[in-house]
């Protein structure tokens, strides 16, 4: 099952301040990614996205489904995602391996799940249900976390590998998230990387963190940091070229700043050994 038909070049996260410029000038971009929830239902956003999809390979990236919530996924959210996927026919569909709700409430964030066998059973069923409904495999993204479940039985990489084996899903490797976890939580970055099944990695994310009270916070508000570029180069050296996204969500700079970051990623991708 193919998870992604994105080209193995750099793309950018397309956000509201750049919609008009991109549609008016059609700049050279390898591909673009948008947040799925911004295009639910219809109206101007969906019409705009359909025009974008005529010119660029497109990836839909969900931030609100919370597949790692141990209660059932929200049927209304899933139905809206399905309508969007059917309307756009994107090159990739991704979600985070995170939770955001209980039966009582939502917290609109990407919260870290317990990496246990019991949680794996439930979450694998949510992933399978989503893929069945959408009629395609999705990519699941690793998180930046600031707290951890105290009873973890495996690392995030091992958990993701289990999900791949059980559901046939693909993976979205966020190199910045991994780096940030290494710094904040002391996560063994190399152990997580080693656990991930290389063939399942269909996309890579790069972004810039900011520093707050001695903590690296994954704010997507900065250029990609040197340590993250270094880790990215190591990942690409090992995996070969993979579709790579520059994400920027706060204090969004001019489009050419994003293009310059994408060009840096492209130069690393072009230098990689093609052993795949």
């Amino acid at each position: 099952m193919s998870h992604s038909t994105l080209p193995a070049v750099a793309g950018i996260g397309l956000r509201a301040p750049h919609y008009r410029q991109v549609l008016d000038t059609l700049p050279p971009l390898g591909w673009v990614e948008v947040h799925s929830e911004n295009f639910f239902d219809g109206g101007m956003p969906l019409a705009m996205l359909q025009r974008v999809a005529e010119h660029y390979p497109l990836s839909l990236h969900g931030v609100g489904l919370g597949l790692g919530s141990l209660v059932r996924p929200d049927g209304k959210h899933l139905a809206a995602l399905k309508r969007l996927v059917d309307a756009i026919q994107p090159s990739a569909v991704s979600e985070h391996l995170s939770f955001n709700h209980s039966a009582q409430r939502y917290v609109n964030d990407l919260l870290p799940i317990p990496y246990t066998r019991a949680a794996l059973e439930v979450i694998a069923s949510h992933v399978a249900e989503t893929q069945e409904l959408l009629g395609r495999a999705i990519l699941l993204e690793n998180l930046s976390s600031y707290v951890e479940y105290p009873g973890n039985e495996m690392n995030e990489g091992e958990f993701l590998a289990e999900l791949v084996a059980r559901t046939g899903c693909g993976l979205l490797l966020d190199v910045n998230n991994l780096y940030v976890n290494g710094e904040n939580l002391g996560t063994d970055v190399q152990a997580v990387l080693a656990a991930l099944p290389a063939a399942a990695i269909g996309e890579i994310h790069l972004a810039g963190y900011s520093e707050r009270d001695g903590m690296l916070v994954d704010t997507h508000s900065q250029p990609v940091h040197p340590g993250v570029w270094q880790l990215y180069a190591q990942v690409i050296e090992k995996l070969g070229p993979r579709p790579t996204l520059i994400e920027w969500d706060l204090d969004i700079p001019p489009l050419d700043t994003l293009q310059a970051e994408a060009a840096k990623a492209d130069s690393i991708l072009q230098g990689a050994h093609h052993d795949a």
Partner: protein
Amino acid sequence: MTPEARWQTALLELIARQEQPPDDTLGLDAAGLAVYRNNYRLGLMDTLKMIYPVCGQIVGEEFFTGLAREYSKRNASLSGNLHEYGGLFGDFLQGFPPAQTLPYLADVARLEWAVHRSYYAIDQQALTAVALTGVAAEHYGALQFRLPDSCTVLSSPWPIVGIWQGHQPGHALEVNLDAGGEAALVQRNAGRVGVTLLSPGMAALLHSLQQGETLGQAAEQALQAEADFDLQAALLHLFTDGLITEFHL
């Protein structure tokens, strides 16, 4: 409930209830929890700021931030889609004592919510007047119409259309608060959300139709609101303006 599900539920409650101290058994790092609490508070407040720019201009940034903080403390998010958050802000303002000096603010907020929902409403095909050619004239009074989800009619004792339009970029604010009430039509045309002033008769007609009443009943309401209401012209206008998506007999 499994220990994992209990932990998830407890973490969600701790993030949303910011004054509650964490239970040691959850194994939560205090600085880590603070990151999520900060994201939560700012995320909801920013969402309100985006949906309610006119209210923000009216009260100023500092006061709006206070309103947004109070609202977000009292109103949990009920959806993974943040675009669905904030719908009760108008009701909150109506009952919140510090906002009482601006009695029109609640209705301006309700109008802004209608604009926000219109922008994200589902696409629906509007009917043209040709759709009624098969209906005999004597049955017109029994017709029921469905308006698009992107359309809202809102009546207020305050001049909300003037207030809203006067706060749009490039417009001068010339509002006489004593001028009396206004009815607003929020609708989407070619993707763009517009707010227009409705005559009392047209507002009564649309209100009535939106509640599922028949065209006959709606026409009565319209005539009561506006003695020289022209029903035929209004009906034609509904179709040319794309305000009818379905009809039933």
